[in-house]
């Protein structure tokens, strides 16, 4: 008690928290049904914030840098889905001056693929093939990937047909990887060569079957477009790190340099989106589960449950990735001390680039999910950026558990806050939450150790 009185800030924080909890409790007692409704709304909004906050957190805990590009990535993700599915959303393909944009994205993908091939295979294959062969081969492969991206973006109507080989390939590779894992773990080195051949054949057949299935399912287009636009936004994030931030980190004096550069990128991409898609709000097509369910007097849409599920799945996926794999160990090592991890032989460039990719994919997913919930507009990224940032501050900067908890808490508090006020003040409420947390609880609920 003496220690509390000695620190008035701490005391005030506790009083404020108690007041907020008491207010919410009072509201719950007053009308439980409405409270349940607000909780549902808060959870579905909070899931979006949590996804963004996780994207921020994985990057922040690795390189201590808030990438403002993720605001643009959210908008890019949503507008990617809008463009690819404008057939359903607007009743007719949206007429935009696409060739330039398509070429830009194709070039980004080609660059990323070229970089990935080079880092993954160049040194391993150098002893067997001449450098010319490797360069030409890698160049052809990455040009092919770029051309494929261009084709996908140019003919969004036949998305399911065009993407079916890619899906088939991905499924086959995943199956092969899983089977090889089984082979190594269970059968080990005790022979049984025929198993490998049969397994490989099975994986290829499975991949081909999935590809065919996709090719005949036009309903899958919406979900394929999610994947395409999230991966594209991720590829842009990776390219930005490899092409820009990496050099800045080497020579910058203060972290603000990178922050300002990413501010410039945010500005440029937001304006570019406005040029291509105009600034009017637009709808995304209806996904599954848009009919509200009624639970205990409150209603919730199936899609919102899916959103919450996505946030949880993303959280557990990231957790597994960070805690159980060698990649995760490398990420945590870089977060602790980058120089030392370089010394012990971790390829920091690759690891950090992949981290930026993952973060951007999370941000884009948040943009897509919130876009299906409300309308989209080019400026949506700025607000989502702020909310994701606040959520990660509330939970504790750089802590993955904190990110998801902070996202949900921010969403619920925001919804309960507009109970007595009008709905348009919810941004003000989350800003007040931010200021209170920064003033009295600057490390967040779950501080990073």
């Amino acid at each position: 008690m003496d220690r509390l009185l000695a620190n008035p800030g701490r005391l005030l924080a506790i009083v404020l928290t108690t007041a907020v909890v008491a207010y919410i409790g009072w509201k719950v007692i007053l009308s439980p049904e409405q409270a349940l409704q607000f909780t549902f709304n808060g959870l579905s909004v909070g899931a979006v914030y949590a996804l963004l906050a996780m994207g921020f957190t994985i990057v922040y805990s690795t390189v201590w840098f808030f990438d403002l590009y993720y605001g643009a990535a959210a908008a890019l993700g949503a507008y990617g889905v809008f463009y690819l599915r404008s057939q359903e959303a607007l009743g007719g393909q949206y007429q935009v001056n696409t060739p330039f944009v398509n070429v830009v994205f194709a070039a980004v993908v080609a660059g990323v693929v070229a970089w990935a091939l080079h880092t993954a295979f160049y040194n391993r294959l150098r002893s067997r093939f001449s450098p010319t062969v490797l360069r030409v081969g890698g160049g052809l492969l990455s040009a092919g990937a770029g051309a494929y991206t261009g084709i996908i973006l140019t003919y969004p109507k036949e998305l399911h047909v065009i993407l079916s080989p890619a899906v088939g390939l991905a499924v086959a590779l995943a199956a092969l990887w899983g089977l090889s894992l089984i082979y190594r773990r269970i059968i080990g080195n005790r022979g049984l060569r025929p198993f490998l051949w049969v397994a490989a054949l099975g994986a290829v057949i499975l991949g081909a079957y999935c590809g065919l299935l996709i090719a005949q399912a036009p309903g899958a287009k919406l979900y394929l477009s999610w994947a395409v636009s999230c991966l594209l936004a991720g590829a842009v994030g990776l390219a930005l790190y490899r092409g820009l931030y990496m050099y800045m980190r080497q020579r910058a004096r203060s972290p603000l340099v990178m922050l300002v550069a990413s501010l410039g990128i945010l500005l440029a991409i937001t304006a570019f989106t406005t040029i291509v898609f105009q600034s009017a709000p637009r709808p995304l097509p209806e996904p599954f589960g848009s009919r509200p369910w009624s639970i205990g007097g409150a209603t919730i849409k199936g899609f919102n449950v899916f959103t919450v599920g996505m946030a949880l799945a993303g959280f557990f996926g990231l957790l597994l990735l960070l805690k159980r794999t060698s990649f995760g160990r490398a990420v945590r090592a870089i977060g602790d001390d980058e120089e030392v991890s370089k010394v012990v032989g971790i390829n920091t460039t690759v690891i950090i680039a992949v981290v930026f990719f993952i973060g951007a994919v999370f941000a884009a997913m948040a943009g897509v999910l919130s876009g299906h919930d409300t309308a989209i507009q080019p400026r949506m990224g700025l607000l989502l950026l702020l909310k994701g940032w606040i959520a990660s501050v509330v939970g504790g900067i750089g802590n993955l558990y904190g990110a998801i908890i902070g996202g949900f808490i921010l969403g619920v508090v925001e919804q309960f806050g507009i109970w007595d006020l009008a709905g348009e003040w919810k941004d003000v409420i989350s800003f007040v939450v931010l200021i209170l947390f920064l003033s009295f609880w600057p490390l967040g609920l779950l501080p990073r150790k």
Partner: protein
Amino acid sequence: MRELARNPRAALRLTGGNIELWANLLVISWAVAFMLWQGVGFAITLGTVFAIWAILSVSLNLVVGFSGLLSIGHIGFFGIGAYAMAILTSDASYEQLRTEAIPTLGWPFFAALPVSVALAGLVAILVGIVFNRFRDDIYVLVSFGFAIISFNVFLNWRALTRGAFGIHEISRPEIGGWAFDGDLAFLALVVVFLAAVMLVSWFIVTSSFGRVLTAIREDEQAASVFGYRVTHYKLAIWVISAMMAGLAGGLFASWTSFIDPNSFILLESILLVSIVILGGLATIWGSLLGAMTFVLLEEGMRFLPFLPNEYVGQARQVVLGILLVLLMLFRPQGLVGRFKL
């Protein structure tokens, strides 16, 4: 030539290394050429826009360049000044015709201008006391939030601001029967205010107060060890800068005679930061240069054949964003700056 391709810095040596001189010459000759080409009437409009942006960017440079606090919420103070001017001076007889009337006072311009400056300063004191404890990226975050909050207040406090409808019929300045209703007269007024702001800023940065600010920017802890009250200094410069922004807002509202919340969105604030960084951190002249480049960029882009007219503003944002990235890569102090971020 081959040497040049291998080492781009050789180009700097070719120009005598004086990038500042060339930047100045380029922008000024661009401005002069533009004026000659487009005629005087256009130049007056452009000059007014330039002067208002210049007041804003000089004021922001005091905070970003001289004190090292990267604030991207400055547009909030601009908006506060503009709304104070609008509400105080909006024409009362016109306001009574509306369905959704707001209180109108019909004050004269020169009575309302001090109020908008003071109001911006007052808000800045309250905001600054809270913001003072933050630094670096957290400071960016909270100022980002401040811009969004002030926009929200302008948009949603309908009893005072009429929300998205905006406020019309804001009066032009008038003193002793002599009205600044001509564009040229208004330009003269704005330029006088710009000169005053520059004078004050110059006075601040050359005084001992400015030297303490620079010391705080370089090493806050060392400055406080020497016995300077760091928080007081930071708060003081923040409030002064906000008051200048409020002044710019008042002038802006009076000049356009119509304002709505869309003039005060976050993107404008980011543009403002990019102007300051483009022109140069910790120089007053650099801010003028940045504002001039910014204004000319838009007007220059109007004449690009492949760019439709409604996209000019957006295209300028794209160019500024890319410029910001390039500056951060190659010249982190801006064109003529003295302080590297």
